[in-house]
C-alpha cells in the first residue's frame, strides 16, 4: 500500500468513527479564562460595595456569580472564534480548542448557554439594568472586540478594553438599580489602564501576533511607537486614577494610592521606553504587565477598604 492510499484509508476510518468527547471538567473551566474572571469579579465586587444603600448578601453573591459566569461565557466565545489564530500563537497554544480537547462547536454552545443563563438569572433574581449591562458587555467583548476590531485595527484593545472595564458598573447597577458618575469613573480607570497593561504583553509576544496576522500595535507600528503609547496612557492614568478622590467620591487613602500607583506605572513605562533591546527590554515589559495587575488590584482594594470603614463608621455613629 502506498503512503497516499494508506493516508486515505486512515482518513476513511477516522471519518467513519463517531466523535466522542474526552474533554474533562477542567477543560471547560479553562474555556472560562479563570484568571481574567477573577479580576472581573473583584472589580464588580468593589462597584457593588461602594454603591450607596444595602444589597442583601445572597443577592450580592448571585449578582457576582452571574457576572463571573457571563465573563466566562465571553471568554469561551472568544476562544471559539479565535480558534484558528490560537493554534498559531505559543501563548494560546495550550488552550482547550488548540489542544483538541474541546471542539469549536462545543465551546460555542457552552459559551452561548452560559451567556444566556447568566443574563437571564441576573435579570430575574437581581436587576434587569445590571442584566442589560452584562449582556452588552458580553456582546461588546465577543462581537465588537473579538469579531470586529481584533483582526482589523491596532486600536483593538483600546476600544475593546471597554468590555473589561464595565464590571464595576454592573456591580453598582446590581446594588442600586441605577447608574451614576461614580461607577463611570471606575470604568474609566480600567479603560485607561487596559492599553498599557496589554501592550506590555504584546511587546513580548509581538512575533506571535505577527505570525497570526493580528494587527497589534507593536506589529503594525513597531515596538518604539508602542513604548511611547504605553508611557502616554500611564501618564493619563494618574489624573484618571485620582479623579474619584479629587471629585470627592473616594477618601485620601484612595487618592494617595492612585498617585503613588500611577507614579509607579509611569516609572515602569519609562523603563520600558528606555530599555529597548534584549533581555532587559523583555524583563521590563513583563514587569510592566505583571505590576499593572497589582496596581489595579491595590487601587480597587483601597476603595473597598475605605467604603468598608465608612460603612462601619456609619454603623458606629
Amino acid at each position: 500500500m502506498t503512503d497516499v492510499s494508506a493516508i486515505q484509508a486512515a482518513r476513511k476510518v477516522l471519518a467513519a468513527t463517531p466523535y466522542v468527547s474526552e474533554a474533562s471538567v477542567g477543560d471547560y473551566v479553562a474555556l472560562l479564562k479563570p484568571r481574567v474572571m477573577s479580576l472581573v469579579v473583584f472589580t464588580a465586587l468593589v462597584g457593588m460595595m461602594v454603591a450607596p444603600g444595602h444589597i442583601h448578601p445572597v443577592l450580592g453573591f448571585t449578582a457576582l456569580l452571574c457576572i463571573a459566569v457571563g465573563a466566562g461565557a465571553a471568554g469561551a466565545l472568544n476562544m471559539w472564534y479565535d480558534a484558528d489564530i490560537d493554534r498559531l500563537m505559543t501563548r494560546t497554544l495550550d488552550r482547550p480548542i488548540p489542544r483538541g480537547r474541546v471542539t469549536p462547536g462545543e465551546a460555542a454552545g457552552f459559551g452561548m448557554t452560559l451567556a444566556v443563563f447568566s443574563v437571564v438569572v441576573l435579570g430575574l433574581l437581581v436587576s434587569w439594568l445590571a442584566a442589560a449591562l452584562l449582556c452588552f458587555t458580553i456582546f461588546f467583548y465577543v462581537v465588537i472586540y473579538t469579531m470586529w476590531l481584533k483582526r482589523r485595527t491596532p486600536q483593538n484593545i483600546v476600544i475593546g478594553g471597554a468590555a473589561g472595564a464595565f464590571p464595576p458598573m454592573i456591580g453598582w447597577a446590581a446594588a442600586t438599580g441605577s447608574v451614576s458618575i461614580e461607577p463611570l469613573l471606575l470604568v474609566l480607570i480600567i479603560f485607561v489602564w487596559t492599553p498599557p497593561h496589554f501592550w506590555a504583553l504584546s511587546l513580548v509576544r509581538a512575533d506571535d501576533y505577527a505570525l497570526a496576522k493580528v494587527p497589534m500595535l507593536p506589529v503594525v507600528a513597531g515596538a518604539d511607537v508602542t513604548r511611547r503609547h504605553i508611557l502616554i496612557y500611564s501618564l493619563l492614568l494618574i489624573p484618571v486614577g485620582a479623579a474619584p478622590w479629587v471629585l470627592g467620591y473616594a477618601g485620601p487613602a484612595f487618592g494617595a494610592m492612585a498617585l503613588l500607583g500611577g507614579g509607579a506605572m509611569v516609572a515602569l513605562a519609562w523603563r520600558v521606553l528606555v530599555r529597548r533591546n534584549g533581555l532587559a527590554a523583555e524583563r521590563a515589559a513583563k514587569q510592566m504587565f505583571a505590576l499593572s495587575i497589582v496596581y489595579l488590584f491595590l487601587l480597587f482594594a483601597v476603595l473597598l477598604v475605605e467604603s468598608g470603614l465608612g460603612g462601619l463608621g456609619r454603623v458606629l455613629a
Partner: protein
Amino acid sequence: MADEPDRIALTEAQRRSRRSRSIAVAIVLAVLVILFYVVTLVKGPGVMNRPL
C-alpha cells in the same frame, strides 16, 4: 454481526470524562435550584418586584 445493535463502544477515558461532565452539570443544576429557592426566601412576597 448483523444482529448486534449498532452502538458506539466508549473507551475508558471517554467513559470517565463523560461521567465527570455529567456530575458537573448535575451540581450546576442543583446549585441553580438552591439559588432560586434561597432568593425566593430572601425576597419573600417581593420576589416579583425587581428594580430596573
